[in-house]
């Protein structure tokens, strides 16, 4: 039984990739067939509103959102805990409600701390 389900999924997975590859192959194939193929240095340069690009874009770049990404990881994992809880909420009873309230309260305090620490302010 398990084997049958597994092989079904594998077939689905493979067929999906064949389908996507065929669609994209059709798109790109037709495009290459019909479209022009002329290149020149100006066309192949990075677009920069008509100016000649002087610097490379891949150089150190300040990511102000770094702390936001860290916050996201914390909250996303929290939500991963909450989903099974929500599905079995009826069976868990009062204990489930109280424990999750405490869990959410801790996270709310964490969010309050992050806001007070000015994590979410950009200059």
């Amino acid at each position, binding site marked *: 039984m398990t084997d049958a389900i597994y092989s079904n999924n594998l077939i689905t997975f493979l067929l999906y990739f064949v389908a996507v590859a065929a669609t994209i192959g059709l798109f790109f194939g037709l495009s290459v067939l019909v479209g022009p193929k002329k290149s020149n240095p100006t066309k192949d340069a*990075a677009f920069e509103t008509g100016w000649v690009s002087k610097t490379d874009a891949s150089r150190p770049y300040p990511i102000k959102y770094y702390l936001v990404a860290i916050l996201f990881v914390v909250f996303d994992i929290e939500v991963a805990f909450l989903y099974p809880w929500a599905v079995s909420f009826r069976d868990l009873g009062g204990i489930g409600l109280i424990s999750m309230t405490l869990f959410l309260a801790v996270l709310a305090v964490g969010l309050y701390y992050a806001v007070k620490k000015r994590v*979410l302010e950009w200059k």
Partner: protein
Amino acid sequence: MSIVEIIIRLIIAFGAVFTFVALNALFLVWLERKVSALIQQRLGPTEVGPAGLLQTLADAVKLMGKELITPTAVSRTVFFLAPIIAFLPAPLLVAAIPIAKGVGVSDLNVGALYILAISNIALLGILMAGWSSNNKYSLLGAMRAVAQNISYEIPMLLSLLAIILMAGSMKFSDIVKAQETVPFVLLQPVAFIIYFICSIAESNRTPFDIPEAESELVAGYHTEFTGMRFALFFLAEYTQVFVLSAIVTLLFLGGWNGPLLPPAVWFFLKTYLVIFVVMWLRWTYPRLRSDQLMNFNWKMLLPAAILNLLISSVIYRGGFPG
């Protein structure tokens, strides 16, 4: 079921899904142009086909005739893969949406979670596109898209939890069944508003379109993509609009429940009504600034979503019917 039968069923399902993705995108692009024309007191496309309905088809043919330019400075493999990765989740999402009871490609028992998980693959495509283009506009657009998407993800997930709590299941048909008497939009209005705002933000549409703000970033992450590569991003975006509206319909507006008309008709009526509202918002509101956007999410939506979840779980424990 024999293996041949399974494969035939799968081929039919994929054919249906891919056809739907293409037709839906063609129709929605036309609708978007007509809605914007209506709001700006113009006519919109009129020439090709009845009421300009075939205009998008003509545009698609034109896009096909354009050269696939690969600028010299890009990192080629990632640049090639980016539009494909962005398009990859679109048919997978459509396949998981049931149209009526027992109608549709699949009705997974973790449907809601599956949709949220798969729809984020497109973000990877956007990040790849922005990084590989080696263009400052693309990089900025991709960075903004990532920050915005991961931020709005959390209130979205939390507001969805309130629905799952009430339905006791993540399966779409169960969630719709729980709304047979009263749709969840009336029982969970706060969750509905939060979810709707967040899903518009997730699809990078105005008023949350800073990743592709054309007046400052040219076209954001897809600046360097031409012809069919650009079309793939476009296809993915419009499929995402359909998916978000279909999910809002299923979770909050009672899905295919409705009197007189057949269920599938109700489902599509509600979905395209939501799509119309999404377009209406796009052509009515100006774009938000990056910090306003982040502050709105972390200081308004997230606390509201947490409170909503707590309050609804307490009310639900206190003998709420369901």
